[in-house]
């Protein structure tokens, strides 16, 4: 039972443009959401997070939006850079939970 879903396995974007990565979840008890970035042969690297009490969190070129009613979050990267090319994982956890639930990832390619 996949509680966190990333329905786009891949995305290609021109350098300088906006990248939008999407994530949907089914568990209404999730209250903390995270995005991780992963390069080949490395572990996932924490990128940005958002609490369910917010609908937006921004950190430099990265912004995460949360729509609780739609059980949807998205990561915006603007402007996109070639070094952003990686696999991005969405993750979620409940306030009493002991595990992060991960999506299957979206492979982002930023074309120079």
């Amino acid at each position: 039972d996949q509680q966190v879903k990333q329905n786009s396995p891949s995305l290609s974007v021109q350098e300088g443009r906006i990248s939008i990565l999407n994530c949907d979840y089914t568990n209404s008890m999730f209250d903390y959401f995270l995005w991780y970035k992963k390069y080949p042969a490395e572990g996932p690297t924490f990128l940005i997070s958002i609490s369910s009490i917010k609908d937006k969190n921004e950190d430099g070129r990265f912004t995460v939006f949360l729509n609780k009613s739609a059980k949807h979050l998205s990561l915006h990267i603007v402007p996109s850079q070639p070094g952003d090319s990686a696999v991005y994982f969405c993750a979620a956890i409940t306030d009493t939970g002991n595990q992060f639930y991960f999506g299957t990832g979206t492979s982002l390619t930023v074309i120079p």
Partner: protein
Amino acid sequence: GAGVSQTPSNKVTEKGKYVELRCDPISGHTALYWYRQSLGQGPEFLIYFQGTGAADDSGLPNDRFFAVRPEGSVSTLKIQRTERGDSAVYLCASSPDGNTEAFFGQGTRLTVV
């Protein structure tokens, strides 16, 4: 800086053998997680430690898998009678106190032949 360290980075073993995978978490982090990642999939939860105790081991696939964290720092994931289906990247992560962002190591790629 001292991040999460996992050893070995690669391990090839024969079917039926026993393996141990080690994780050194970030100093002071009380929460420690083990995940497993197969190709094309997201990380899959195995076990969560809070301090020395396994607070949640519901993700361990069967009794061939076991993990310990005797002093609340280093953890070892142990797999007995390995099977080819155990081949995956095993990821360890730590968090200051659980329920906030977890920081991952580079993983151990286990290949069972």
